[in-house]
């Protein structure tokens, strides 16, 4: 099935093979994981201990250091996922579909986190856990798009068919995301003017901006680390019967507990 990789291929396609990407991903995970941890600790420290209290919103505003990076990451992850899906449909590469599969749960998690933290921010600030604001509503729909993607993948048994079907769904979704966003915004402004505008926030203090930036970078590093970790599991699971997984297993020795469980010989 999977011949050993020859390093002669173009640099772009060299790591498109699971066999050569697997060790690379393994080497990258600790770096991104450590970066995520350090950035998150630094960001939380600046955000919760250094940044000044907001004169209008008090201490409650500090949740935005988690909320805003999560919301950005949820949107951005969907775009990245759709990009990998487009690659997998266009070039029929296994790895890009696996990357999309690996990103979806993290994106859904971030969408959920941004909704959840938004509710906790909205309660003291707006006086309500949930407002039918354009951003809230479109984030909720984004969460449903993620769940639909994951559910469609999970309900098709053949992994290659699941790859392609969910890729089509992600692409239809990514065309729809801006339409959903603008339609929801228009719907909202037609219904009623927003009582509290999120866009007209007072200018941020420098330290708040630094904390936000650190947390955003932490979210990026976390997403990359987790997606790589997950894609490694997916690769092992789906290619359990191919040569390179067998080689890995032999190299790891008979006592290695990580690979033996998943493989059926």
């Amino acid at each position: 099935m999977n011949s050993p990789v020859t390093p002669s291929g173009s640099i772009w396609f060299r790591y498109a093979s699971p066999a050569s990407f697997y060790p690379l991903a393994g080497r990258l995970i600790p770096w991104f994981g450590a970066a995520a941890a350090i950035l998150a600790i630094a960001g939380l420290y600046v955000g919760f201990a250094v940044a000044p209290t907001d004169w209008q919103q008090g201490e409650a505003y500090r949740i935005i250091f988690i909320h805003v990076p999560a919301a950005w990451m949820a949107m951005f992850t969907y775009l990245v996922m759709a990009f990998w899906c487009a690659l997998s449909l266009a070039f029929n590469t296994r790895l890009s579909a696996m990357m999309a599969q690996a990103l979806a749960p993290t994106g859904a998690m971030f969408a959920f986190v941004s909704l959840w933290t938004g509710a906790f921010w909205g309660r003291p600030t707006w006086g309500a856990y949930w407002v039918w604001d354009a951003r809230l509503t479109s984030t909720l729909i984004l969460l449903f798009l993620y769940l639909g993607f994951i559910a469609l993948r999970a309900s098709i048994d053949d992994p290659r068919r699941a790859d392609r079907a969910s890729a089509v769904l992600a692409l239809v979704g990514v065309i729809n995301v801006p339409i959903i966003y603008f339609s929801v915004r228009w719907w909202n402004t037609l219904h009623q003017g927003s009582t509290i505008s999120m866009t007209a926030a007072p200018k941020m203090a420098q330290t708040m901006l630094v904390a936000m930036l650190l947390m955003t970078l932490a979210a990026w590093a976390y997403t990359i680390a987790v997606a790589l970790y997950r894609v490694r599991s997916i690769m092992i699971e789906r290619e359990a019967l191919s040569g390179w997984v067998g080689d890995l297993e032999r190299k790891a020795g008979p006592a290695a507990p990580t690979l033996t469980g998943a493989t059926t010989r």
Partner: protein
Amino acid sequence: MKPAVATGAFGALWWACQRDLRLAMRSRAELAVIVVFFLLVTSLFPLAVSPDPVLLRAIAPGIAWVAALLASLLGLSRLFAADHGDGTLEQMVLAPAPLQALVAGKVLAHWLATGVPLVLLAPVVGLQFGLDTDAIAVLVASLALGTPILSWLGAIAAALTLGARGGSSLLALLVLPLAVPVLIFGAGAVESYGSGLGADAHLSLLGAGLIVVWVFGPAATALAVRIAHE
């Protein structure tokens, strides 16, 4: 049944549309269920909310649209599943006629059989909720432009879920988020007409959406059908 002699795109579209309409006419009970469901769901709202005519008039467009959206989900699983089950769909994939045209014909037939009855029944719902004649006309226009979009979105999702486990509940999860803009513009058309803003902008956007799904829908659905037959 006539063999698919027509290999041109429009011939294929016409053939598939005729065939599916004939099949639909032979199972009228299933079509009737969709229509009854539509009326039933709209009648539940006054019972659940309140019989206050002012409130009902305000929420009527939204109710009609939500009911139409849910009713359009009902017929979707039939769109490809039967043809997939008996192998007809596979023959369509292999046929010399372009698959996109065949799929478009099927979706057109699906809309004629399940969407048009809802459009025609919308005035009844409008009267039940006390909408005036002009508002009913806007509601009918918005449904006439919007239900084909729902059919196309549903067709893509139905083709993607072919052979998947848990078909129909999964279908709802896939279609409903994608249908949000249609719902907003459709119900919004009647509402903005009622508030004196005019329905032109909403109806134009629905029309634009209709063109977009007719351009991209056939390709996406045909691709999804091919994926199901790999």
